[in-house]
């Protein structure tokens, strides 16, 4: 028998091509809920006071002599939206995008990016306890989870999903363009080892669904948003996330970086805000009807100083803003208790005073969308957290 006959005859190895799982995507188990949650971690500390400006606060203008450039888009009488977020105005008007202001994690005083992100993702001040990330703990309280339920996306390590509960990681730039012959031979060499075989099957399934979507998008010139995004970009992550969330995935998390605006903030922040806008819009377009069941929370490790610094930027601060979006939340509003910007009202006379905890916001979303109990949120997901009153953005 020649070697091709050996492989494709099916007699010796019993793997006929038609039934080959490496050649046809496998069905994946479904998640236990119907709603979707996307957590975008804004690494570098977004200046919430610039992204969503308190134009009506009597002390704002003096604190931001150059950053207050008069170009903000009015969000009612008090607030103004940074022009870099103007692409999100239609979502705001449709009630599908809003802001929770003057929020933070429990992190105080240190103002280190690394500690701040560790606490944000651990959901706790105890960052070295090995308890993993809070999204992972959330999954641990719900039975029937499969790895496909939650995705950490991108090459960045997402500590927020780290932990014992199963989840998948995928960087869309992971190349998996193997020749058909290579696939067949891999199937042969991995076939008898279940751990390797199953991992490869899922990898093939993910890679194929990406390729199918890219081909579908190419055939549809009118739908610009579905055009394959630049590899490695956040829009690429969002496109991939949307594709998974349309299927069996319920939770996705990835990062948008570039917020550490110590100088010339007016030059750098607009670009980052536009990237964030495109990321959210890519999610919306990719999710289609599922957008109505989706909550997107954009969280950052801390806010920035209330005062502009000497180099037209801002330094590490405390209170900031959380941008949220999705049809499963009530947008078109800025929620949260505004503490004011008078010097006595600032945290340590320099930062926006946090009046809310971003963890409580996420905790309410989990109760509302995924049916977790307050006890589960306050004891397991965020141990020791006081959920307080429901934020105004729940439907």
């Amino acid at each position, binding site marked *: 028998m020649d070697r091709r006959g050996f492989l494709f005859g099916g007699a010796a190895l019993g793997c006929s091509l038609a039934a080959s799982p490496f050649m046809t995507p496998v069905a994946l188990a479904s998640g236990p809920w119907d709603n979707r949650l996307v957590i975008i971690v804004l690494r570098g500390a977004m200046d919430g006071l610039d992204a969503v400006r308190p134009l009506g606060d009597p002390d704002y203008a003096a604190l931001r002599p150059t950053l207050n450039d008069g170009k903000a888009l009015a969000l009612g009488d008090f607030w103004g939206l940074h022009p870099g977020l103007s692409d999100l105005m239609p979502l705001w008007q449709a009630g599908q995008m809003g802001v929770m202001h003057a929020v933070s994690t429990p992190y105080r005083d240190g103002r280190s990016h690394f500690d701040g992100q560790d606490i944000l993702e651990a959901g706790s001040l105890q960052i070295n306890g090995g308890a993993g990330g809070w999204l992972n703990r959330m999954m641990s309280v719900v039975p029937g989870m499969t790895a496909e339920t939650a995705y950490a996306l991108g090459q960045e390590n997402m500590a927020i999903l780290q932990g014992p509960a199963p989840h998948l990681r*995928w960087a869309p730039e992971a190349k*998996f363009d*193997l020749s058909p*012959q290579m696939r067949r031979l891999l199937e042969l*060499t991995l076939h008898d080892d279940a751990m390797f075989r199953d*991992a490869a099957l899922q990898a093939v399934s993910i890679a194929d669904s990406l390729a199918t979507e890219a081909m579908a998008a190419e055939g549809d010139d009118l739908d610009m948003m579905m055009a394959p995004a630049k590899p490695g970009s956040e829009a690429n992550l969002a496109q991939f996330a949307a594709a998974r969330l349309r299927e069996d995935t319920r939770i996705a998390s990835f990062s948008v970086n570039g917020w550490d605006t110590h100088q010339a903030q007016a030059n750098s922040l607009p670009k980052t805000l536009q990237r964030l806008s495109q990321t959210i819009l890519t999610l919306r377009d990719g999710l289609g009807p599922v957008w109505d069941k989706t909550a997107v929370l954009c969280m950052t490790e801390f806010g920035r100083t209330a005062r502009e610094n000497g*180099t037209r930027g801002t330094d590490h601060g405390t209170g900031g803003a959380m941008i949220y979006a999705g049809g499963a939340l009530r947008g078109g509003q800025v929620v949260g208790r505004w503490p004011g910007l008078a010097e006595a009202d600032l945290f340590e006379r320099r930062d926006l005073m946090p009046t809310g905890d971003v963890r409580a916001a996420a905790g309410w979303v989990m109760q509302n969308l995924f049916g977790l109990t307050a006890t589960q949120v306050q004891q397991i997901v965020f141990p020791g957290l006081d959920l307080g009153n429901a934020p105004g953005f729940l439907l």
Partner: protein
Amino acid sequence: MTFDPIIAATRFGTGLSPVIEPPWDTESMLGKLGGPDQAAALMPIAGFEATTPTLAFIGALNKADREARGTDGEAAAKEAIRQKNRELSDVSRHNTLSTLARCVTAQDGLRERLTLFWADHFTVIGRGFNQRHLVTPYIADAIRPHVAGRFADMVKAVVMHPMMLLYLEQTRSLGPSSPQGLKSGRGLNENLARELLELHLIGVGGGYDQTDVTQMAELLTGLSYNAVHGVTYRAQQAEPGAEVVMGRRYSADSALATITSALEDIAIRPETAAHISRKLAVHFVSDTPDPDLIAGMSRAFVDSGGDLLAVTGAMLQHPAAWSPVRAKVRQPFIFIAAGLRALGVRADRIMPLGNGQFKRHLTDPLRLMGQPFEQPVGPDGWAEEPAAWITPQGLAGRISWAVASPAEFVDTLPDPRKFVQTAVGPTAPPELIFAADAAESLADGVALVLTSPAFQRI
């Protein structure tokens, strides 16, 4: 279940090679390990003190940069930062490639594996770009010289190292009732004390409680580090009074000797012996190791006062170590190293890699495979379970690397039919032998061998 050269080279080494013979018996492995460190001499890695740019220099540059903003000196300060960043990335690349080249070309693969194991046991993560290049020097200083020495010496070297003092925040800890604590109102940071008991020495379930952690943290007060003065012991920061950790009372003297003698003592406790023995066995042999293997290693640990050559020897001399069941999977860094070793790659093909190739063929693939170099998530280091590594993305990363990267390191790829034997040994399964022969290209054939369970399981 007796000594097998293939298992010796794979389970306890960095892999098979066409140019380096596998070990021929346990005694020769231990003889090499107890002898001089030839790989370090051939491919040197500078320690913390000798590595530039230093943290003090970086701190001064950043300060100058802040002060120069808006002045005439701004451009010059920025250029100095850029120059520093280039130097940092050169140091990181050199250190990473040296670590890889040592594994690829090692005559004593066990020493390389033990160095990686102990560096993981005493995980330090550099905070940000300005510290990351200093992790390999930390390993060179505190870990590698002790892998065949006394465990207590390794513990002391680790606890007294700037990188550990920074990473587990001993630099932020003060005795609350010490003169400086009373003056400043600051107090303990228990991070280092907790991880010493939980991860490094006694182990979870070893019988310590929160009181012991607090006592340990008080015991460590006085020890600190800063970039200007280096590692310091300051009696005026030390908590007064004697501390009791796990039932043993240590000296009330505010002196560095109090810390070192306590570490010496805890490092040879039977709980530590059991924890260390189990961890070694889990890393090298199986996630569920034979209790008799752990018992034999623990005995060697206690009898020798924590001599790691004796403990490693007890592992190699136990039949369970040579089980034909390959229960472990190569972690990504060793997967790459073993792949290059099987290809017979020489150090002079690794060391000259430029930034682009370095990223494309090493650091990016490691990240995709789930093991960014020297950047685990937390102080508990890398996962041991094979399933943590053979994930869809992790395996896709391995396959992609195996297809695309080997050709960058050799002039011609080997004939896959021969490469099966070189990389896996004479026990290669028939389907792999068939597949290597049936591949369309040399690159695909080599990749099939490197991605096979027979190569990845050890």
